[in-house]
C-alpha cells in the first residue's frame, strides 16, 4: 500500500460504481510505479492540474509507433513514474478473448510494468499503462512471442476496430470481424510505420446502428447495409401486436421516411420498399419480425474525426453500396487511391475529411475516380459556383 496519504482519491473508493482508485491501489501493492501513480494523481487532485510532461519519443525496434512516451514533471518526488510510457496492443476483432489469452497478457505485464491497463483504449487497443523505457523492448518481445502485436500511434493507420457483428448479432450485413482482421494484416506497414500527413482510422459496423461509432470517429467508416428490401415476417408482427407493442406509434410513426404501413385489422406490416432508407429503426424495435434484406454489403463513408482543428466532421457517403467479401479487392483498390491522393495533397496534420473539404469533393472524386451520386449529399449545392473543366466548354 502507498506510504503517502491519498484522502481525495480514497473518497473515490466509495459508491456503487467500481473504482479505478481501488484498481490502482491493487496494483500498488506489488508495484512501485503504480504506487507513485497514485501519489502523483493525488497531487493532481490537490493541484487541479496534470503532472505529465509533453510526450517524448520512445519505441521498439522496427516500429514507428505503438508506444506513447510519458514522463512526470516531478521526477524527484515521484521517481517511479519518471518514465511511465504506455504501449498499445492491437486487440482481436470485436474484443473477443479466451481467458488464457488475457492471462498471458497479465503475466507479461506483471513482469514488465505497472500492472495497470486500459481495457480498452478509445481506438480499441488494449493498453499497458505505465512502464520504464528499458522495459519497452522486452515487453514487446514477449508480447510478440506470445502472438500479440502493437497498435498504431502517430501519423499512421490506427488499429482498425469493428462491432461484434455476425459473431453475435442478427443485424450484421457483412463480416465485420473478418474485414477488420484482413485490413489490419494487409496494412501492417501503414499501421506500424507512420508516413502520412496525419492519422487514419478505419472502423466497421455491421449495420447502420453503428455500434463502434464509426461515422463519428473514423476517417473511413464501413457500415453494413442491403440493396434490396427489408424482410417482414407477418406471423412475428402479429405476435408483437398481441404482446402489446404499439406498432403504429413506436414503429411506423418513427420511420423517418414513413415507409411503413401498418394494417391494424390484419395486424400486418407493409413496407414501401423504395421509400425505405435502411435506417434500422423498425428492425431494432421488432428484431423478430423485421430483418435486413438479402442483398447485403456496405456503405463506405469518409472523413469522420473529432474537433481539432477545423471542427469535428462526421463521415459522409462515398460509395452507397459495395459488396464486402474477401479478398475485398474493390475496396482495397479504392483505399489505395484515396491514400495516394491524401498523401500527395494533405498538409501536415490534415485529416482526410479536412483535406477533401479544403480542396473540394469534386476534385477528390475526379482524381480518385469515384462516380458522383446523389447519395453522397443531403442536398445539392446552394451556390452556383460550379467549376467547368476545359474539356467541357466551347473553345
Amino acid at each position, binding site marked *: 500500500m502507498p506510504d503517502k496519504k491519498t484522502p481525495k482519491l480514497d473518497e473515490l473508493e466509495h459508491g456503487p460504481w467500481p473504482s479505478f482508485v481501488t484498481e490502482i491501489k491493487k496494483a500498488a501493492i506489488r508495484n512501485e510505479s503504480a504506487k507513485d501513480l497514485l501519489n502523483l494523481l493525488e497531487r493532481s487532485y490537490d493541484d487541479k492540474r496534470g503532472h505529465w510532461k509533453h510526450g517524448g519519443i520512445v519505441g521498439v525496434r522496427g*516500429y514507428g509507433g505503438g508506444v506513447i512516451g510519458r514522463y512526470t514533471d516531478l521526477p524527484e518526488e515521484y521517481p517511479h513514474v519518471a518514465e511511465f510510457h504506455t504501449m498499445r496492443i492491437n486487440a482481436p476483432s470485436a474484443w473477443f478473448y479466451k481467458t488464457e*489469452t488475457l492471462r498471458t497478457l497479465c503475466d507479461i505485464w506483471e513482469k514488465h510494468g505497472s500492472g495497470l491497463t486500459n481495457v480498452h483504449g478509445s481506438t480499441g487497443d488494449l493498453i499497458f*499503462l505505465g512502464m520504464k523505457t528499458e522495459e519497452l523492448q522486452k515487453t514487446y518481445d514477449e508480447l510478440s512471442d506470445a502472438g500479440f502485436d502493437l497498435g498504431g500511434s502517430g501519423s499512421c493507420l490506427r488499429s482498425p476496430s469493428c462491432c461484434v457483428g455476425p459473431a453475435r448479432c442478427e443485424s450484421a450485413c457483412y463480416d465485420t470481424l473478418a474485414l477488420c482482421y484482413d485490413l489490419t494484416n494487409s496494412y501492417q506497414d501503414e499501421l506500424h510505420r507512420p508516413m502520412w500527413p496525419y492519422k487514419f482510422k478505419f472502423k466497421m459496423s455491421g449495420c447502420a446502428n453503428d455500434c463502434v461509432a464509426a461515422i463519428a470517429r473514423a476517417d473511413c467508416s464501413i457500415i453494413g447495409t442491403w440493396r434490396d428490401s427489408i424482410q417482414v415476417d407477418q406471423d412475428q408482427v402479429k405476435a408483437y401486436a398481441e404482446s402489446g407493442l404499439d406498432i403504429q406509434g413506436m414503429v411506423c410513426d418513427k420511420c423517418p421516411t414513413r415507409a411503413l404501413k401498418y394494417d391494424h385489422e390484419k395486424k400486418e406490416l407493409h413496407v414501401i420498399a423504395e421509400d425505405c432508407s435502411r435506417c434500422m429503426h423498425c428492425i431494432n424495435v421488432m428484431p423478430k419480425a423485421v430483418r435486413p434484406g438479402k442483398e447485403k454489403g456496405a456503405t463506405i463513408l469518409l472523413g469522420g474525426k473529432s474537433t481539432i482543428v477545423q471542427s469535428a466532421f462526421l463521415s459522409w457517403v462515398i460509395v452507397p453500396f459495395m459488396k464486402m467479401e474477401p479478398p475485398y479487392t474493390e475496396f482495397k483498390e479504392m483505399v489505395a487511391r484515396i491514400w495516394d491522393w491524401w498523401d500527395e495533397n494533405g498538409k501536415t496534420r490534415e485529416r482526410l475529411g479536412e483535406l477533401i473539404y479544403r480542396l473540394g469533393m469534386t476534385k477528390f472524386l475526379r482524381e480518385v475516380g469515384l462516380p458522383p451520386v446523389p447519395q453522397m449529399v443531403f442536398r445539392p449545392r446552394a451556390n452556383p459556383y460550379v467549376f467547368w473543366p476545359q474539356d467541357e466548354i466551347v473553345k
Partner: protein
Amino acid sequence: MSKIDGGPPDYKKLLPPIITENYGQWKYHEIPRAGVLKHVSEKGYALYSVRVGSPRLVSIDYIRDICALADSYCDGYLRFTSRNNVEFLVSDEAKVEPLIKELEAKGYPIGGVGNALSNIVHTQGWVHCHTPATDASGIVKAVMDDLYEYFGRTDLPAKLKVAMACCLNMCGAVHCSDVAILGVHRTPPRVDHEKIRKGTEIPTLVAACPTGAIRPDPKNKSVVVNEERCMYCGNCYTMSPAMEILDAKNDGIAILVGGKVSNARTAPSFSRLVIPFLPNNPPRWPEVTAAVRHIVETWLNNARKGERVGEWIERIGWERFFSLTEIPFTDKHIDDFIFSRETFRTTAAFKY
C-alpha cells in the same frame, strides 16, 4: 530478435464454440433482464451475454478475476464492448443466474443493456496525458456513482450514451454523445521562449493554430500569441511543449448534449454546448454530477418513449431546452467558428 508485424491474434481462435457454430446465423435477440442479452440463432441455440460495467482503468488483478469468472461460467470466453464493458458469454442457460449472483456478490454492476445508461467512454486525464484540463477517471466514477440507478434499468426513453474527454482532442466520441463531459482550457498558452528556441519548428507551430493567433517573432526567434484570437484549443501545445496550456486556476469542464451516432431514425449528429464551464472540484466534481443529473432527469421527465436526448431536444427546440432546464443561455453558446452560419436561426418562427 522477435518478429515484427505479426498482427493481432486471430479472432477466430478466440470465439466461444457456440459462436463459431452459429456465426452469422443469429436470428433475433431479447433482453430477459437488465444487463443481459439473449441471442437466439437460426439453429435454435441461445447465447446469454451478461454485461458488466468496468472502470476501464483496471489492474491485472481485475482481469484475472473476471477471467476466473469466465472460466467458471463461460468455458473461458469473454469479450469487451465498444464502450469498455465486460461481456460474459454464457452458452448454458443454467449458468446465467449463478453468474449474476456471484457478480452481484462481488459488486460488479450488471447493466448497460437496452434503454439504459451504459458505461462512460473516456480518456486518460491526469492519469496519463499531457494536455488534460481535468481528470477523466475521477469524473467518470463520480458521475456513474451518481447515475448508478440508470445503469441497471431498461426503461429509459432510449439508450443513454455519456462520454468524457479531458481536452479538446476528444479521444472518444464526445462530439456525438447524448451527454458529453469535456475538459476545457480557458487561457491562452504561455510561451516558453527558451523551449521554442530549443527545437520548435516555428512555421509548423504558426500553421497549427486554427484561428491564426500565433505570429512568428523573428526578433526573439520565438512566437507571440494574440490573446484576443486564442480560444484555447491546445493544438499549439500538441505541436510544441513550449506552449504551456495547463492552467490550474482556469481549467475546467464544459457539458455538451444531444449528439448521437446511430443512423436509426435520425442522422448522426453532434453534441452541442450547453454549459460552457464548470470548475474542477475533485475528488467528486459535485457541480458536474449535479449538472449531468439535472439534464438526464429533465430528459427522463419530458422525452417521449424512444427519443434519444438529441431527438427530444430537436422536437421541443433548443430554446425550450434552455427554458426547461433553466440553464442560462449566453453568448458562449453561439457558434463563431467556421461552420457557425448553419447554426443561426434563419427563420422568424421559434418558441420562447
